[in-house]
């Protein structure tokens, strides 16, 4: 685990002595606590640092924290409080965005585990790149021909690849919790996350089809 991450919560608020629910603010008296560098996002929400989290709970906690630290709400009579509020709000939003989606959550867990970044390791499983290349070429051909049927099929194919990759990401991110073959798991997770980036990119860049029934690219 990253030695800069802070795993412990202060037990009681320094101002009002109420038990602390979150490490960045006291929900009783509204005292804001400047975040330590590299505060673990899971700890920020007082959630266990692991892949499987209750997304509903995350959302509720995000709203509850927002209500306590939002710059429009906090007491702005001191510069210190204003600064803390701004800093904490931006941190909270970043943490929420990171944890709410399975892909970014797995990516974050890999960072916490000290795994490779996409810069360290750009590899992807097997023939992923060749598949991407062929699909890109097919998209070009279908677009030039205005072939909506082919584009629809490509879109489905890209979505299938993305789903299969996500299944692997979830499996590997869960496996990170065990110490068994940790290096191997991290390397494989890096590869699948790299592949996911290609599928997501490809999905976003696929032209939206003019289909009947208002089906958009996210259907």
């Amino acid at each position, binding site marked *: 685990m990253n030695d800069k991450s802070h795993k412990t919560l202060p037990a009681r608020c320094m101002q009002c002595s109420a038990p602390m629910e979150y490490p960045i603010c006291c929900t009783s008296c509204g005292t804001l606590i400047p975040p330590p560098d590299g505060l673990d996002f899971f700890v920020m929400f007082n959630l266990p640092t692991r892949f499987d989290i209750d997304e509903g709970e995350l959302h509720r906690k995000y709203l509850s924290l927002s209500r306590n630290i939002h710059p429009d709400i906090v007491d702005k009579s001191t510069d210190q409080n204003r600064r803390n509020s701004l800093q904490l709000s931006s941190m909270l939003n970043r943490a929420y965005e990171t944890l709410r989606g399975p892909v970014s959550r797995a990516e974050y867990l890999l960072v916490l585990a000290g795994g490779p970044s*996409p*810069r360290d390791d*750009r590899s*992807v499983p097997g023939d992923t*790149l*060749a598949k*991407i*290349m062929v699909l*890109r*070429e097919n998209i070009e051909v279908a677009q030039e021909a205005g072939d909506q049927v082919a584009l629809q099929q490509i879109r489905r194919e890209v979505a299938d690849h993305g789903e299969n990759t996500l299944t692997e990401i979830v499996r590997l991110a869960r496996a990170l919790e065990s110490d068994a073959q940790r290096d191997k798991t991290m390397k494989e997770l890096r590869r699948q*996350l*790299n*592949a996911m*980036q*290609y599928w*997501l*990119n*490809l999905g976003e*860049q696929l032209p939206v089809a003019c289909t009947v029934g208002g089906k958009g690219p996210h259907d």
Partner: protein
Amino acid sequence: MAYSDKVLDHFNHPRNIGVLDKNDPNVGTGVVGAPECGDVMKLQIKVDADNRIVDAKFKTFGCGSAIASSSLATEWIKGKTVDQALEIRNTDIVRELALPPVKIHCSVLAEDAIRAAIQDIKEKQTASAEAATGSLSES
């Protein structure tokens, strides 16, 4: 972000866009990508009996800098032997195209593509040499 004139020139008039037959024993194919941006680059080389690169083609799906880097790469490797082509460094591409720091990975991609294509042709040559020895020993 402003592109340099050289990047724009390669982007607007890419050299050597196209495809070579990947099943040709004298053609090496390299496909590489950058997961951060989703760019993919295919670079192919055709070599003669002296391992000199007689033709090179590329196809890149990515930003202007990635297209310019691969276009320049194919221009540079044509006429070189594979060993000479391996000496090309991404920093040479950065310098030539005046790429800004955020686009350095595009030049890395082009260098990786050259290496991947050369590795492919070397593997093909080894395989066909082994097949030749194999068929000799069988007969």
